[in-house]
């Protein structure tokens, strides 16, 4: 099996996601980057599940479901912000600091 390749792939995905999270100014895009990270996780789980049984796959399913829920909430909040200040640029949110 090409375990290493898969792990590498997931690592790359993870990094891309993190990069997106850090640099993207648009809230929605940030959410999408997060999705990338979560999927990296899923890849890991699936790969390992081929060794250690279904638990991994179950875990992956849970992850997908919960990710969906999270993104739902996230979008709601972003929407809320858009309502209040007509923009989803999360860089403008620095009212509280220190």
């Amino acid at each position, binding site marked *: 099996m090409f375990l290493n390749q898969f792990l590498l792939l997931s690592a790359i995905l993870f990094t891309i996601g993190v990069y997106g999270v850090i640099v993207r100014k648009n809230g929605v895009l940030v959410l999408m980057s997060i999705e990338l990270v979560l999927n990296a996780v899923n890849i890991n789980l699936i790969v390992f599940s081929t060794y250690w049984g279904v638990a991994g796959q179950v875990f992956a399913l849970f992850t997908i479901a919960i990710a969906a829920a999270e993104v739902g909430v996230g979008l709601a909040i972003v929407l809320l912000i858009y309502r209040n200040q007509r923009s989803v640029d999360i860089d403008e949110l620095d009212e509280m600091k*220190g």
Partner: protein
Amino acid sequence: MWFFTHVWIIPALMALSFLLILFFGKKMPKKGAEIGIVFVGAAFVLALLTGGNWIAWSNNNPEGHGPAAEGAALANVDPSCSSVAAEAAAVGEGVEHVEGKTEGKTAGKKAGEGHNEGGHSTEGATAAAPPIGESAAPAAPAAPAATEPAGAEKGGHEEVATRPVVSCINWFENGDQTISIGTLVDGQSVLLLIVVTLISLLVHVFSTDYVHGDRRYTHYFAFLSLFTASMLFFVLSENTLQMIVGWELVGVCSFALIGHWWEEKPNSDAALKAFLTNRVGDIGLLVGVIVLYFAAGKSFSIMDLNILANEGEISHNLLLIGSLCLITAVMSKSGQFILHTWLPDAMAGPTPVSALIHAATMVVAGVYMVARLYPVFFEGLSISGSSVNALSMIGAITALFGAMLAFVQKDIKKVLAYSTVSQLGFMVTALGVGAWTAALFHLFTHAFFKACLFLGAGSLSHACHHSFNMVDDMGGLRKIMPKTFWTYLVATAALAGVFPLSGFWSKDEILAGTGSFPGTEGANGEYHVMLVMLLLAAFCTAAYMTRTIWYAFYGEYRGHGTPHESGPRITTPLIILASLGAIAGIVNLPAAFDFLPEGTQTRFEHYVEPVGLYFPAISHAGFNPALAVISVLVGLSGIGLAYLYFFKDAFAGLHGLAERNKVAAFFKNILVNKYYFDWLYTTVIVGFVKGPLARAANWFSANVIDGTVNLVGKTAVGSGSWVYKNVDQKVVDGAVNGAGSSASGVGAMLRLTQTGRIQQYAALFFAAVAILAGVFVVVIG
């Protein structure tokens, strides 16, 4: 016996009188003076009775030689006070106890009464009384004249052991030690008992007139009582700790009385100076007592200490250190050169006080202590057989320089003050050369005539609007104040040592005691230097006293107003004291006068000087007519010269010498400035301690220590604010770079945190993840 075991009643009386005056004095018709007089009178009577008893008691000293007899002589020392004495006493034993029991009972009963009248601070004495009675038992049989006192008369000091009576109660227990408080009665303490109470009584009477209508009349008498009480307490102390207590208490009384008129700065300054100077000496006292406490095997008891020191149980060095420490105390309290400077200033106090405290009683406390602990000094300074030691040296110097200082004073009290300094020097020298009896004898006589002189001076100033400046404000008072004049004259003569007044006898004994003069080899050593210095001092003494007489009583009245003779309450004490000063000498006529009837010579020595285990076997210089004549001549020549100089205007050349001659002026200045000691103390030393040093310490406290603490605090807050500020300030575009450059470490991270920018948070977050993970993966693998 009862008087010896209950002698504590006397100080207790005075203490009670103090309290009474303090609380009720103001309400009394005479503002409390009467209370004081009544009580001190009572105390005096009791003291006299005690004295009488003592004479009877020591007339019955059993014949006997060697340790056994001397041990037996200590049978009246309560074992609980002095274990050593108890052991010694155990040597000579074997007496029935029946009478002892009865003695004990009566003693107990009496103690009960004593307690009732003794008032406060004497509880527990009752409890202590029975054991005292017990311990008294062995002495009982001696009472019926067992041995012929007549036999005990040969040459003054035969080997008849004195029988001191020591009684005490448990004061407190500290650790494993039991410290007792009690009384030590023997010739020495009884002597002081009488002197103190007598002079105090006279001064009380004198004061009723002298400080009449004073601002703080009542307080004045209160403190007189307190002083008397403390002095008696000191005199009767059974252990050194007790001595310290009395020593300090009299110091405070003198402080309070010197500063009696504290509204004026000089008076309060003088008071402070007196107290502080004494405090300096007290360092010596404290340390010395501590050293001796351990030297005597953890015991404060004077008996223990003396006996051990006497029998050479204590190493010479310890005794030396101890005695040297104590000498500093003596120097401060008894105004010895170089700590004498407070005494003249102390004259700022009311004159009767000067008479009582700064002439007759308190200032001799130092002398008394040395005499009390004589074995320590005798062994420690190895007085016997040598020709010089610290004590005698200090004494002699003081005697001479004090006398010289007395010359240049304008203030009559200052003259007397320096005279006191010088006379104390005589006493200390006497102790230093081993003439113990002579010292005490001189203390005795000096008390009378010096008190008389002071009171006389008081009487004078009373007449002259409370000025003591004899040079400017007095003169020609001979006619106006005859009583004062004559008494003053007698006292002066006594002080100058004119035959046959008391001063002559005591001073002569001291001179002989130096053992330097051919024919006085009987003494303990040969102190030639001392003899010379003392003779010079005697000369000066005579001279400056004559000077005072001249200024005060002769010539024209230079003051203002019309002086008048003082009232009876002032003059009576003068007369009494003068007459005592005149005749007091007879109590110790030299043994050599064997033409006199039996038992009239050396009474003083016989009754006062202890013989026994707790006192060194000192030898006595015999009376030497030649020396006597010389001393008288010296005195007379002093008088004579001064007479010629002042009265007859002889040596005209000398008059105003100081004005003309640089050299003379120089020396005069030195004298006028009291050898610049005050300048040294106040300006240099005190100034330094008070000023720079203290300020330095304060600065150190405020800036360095406190500063460091504050610095720590500041750094905490400061670094907080640093983090805060940098966290707060916007990082424009460094987020990614900073996050990327994770090598820049936690510091950089802190700077990048908390900007309010989510993405920078995120960057920090992942950076931290990367670092943590990276580090651990690398380190641990």
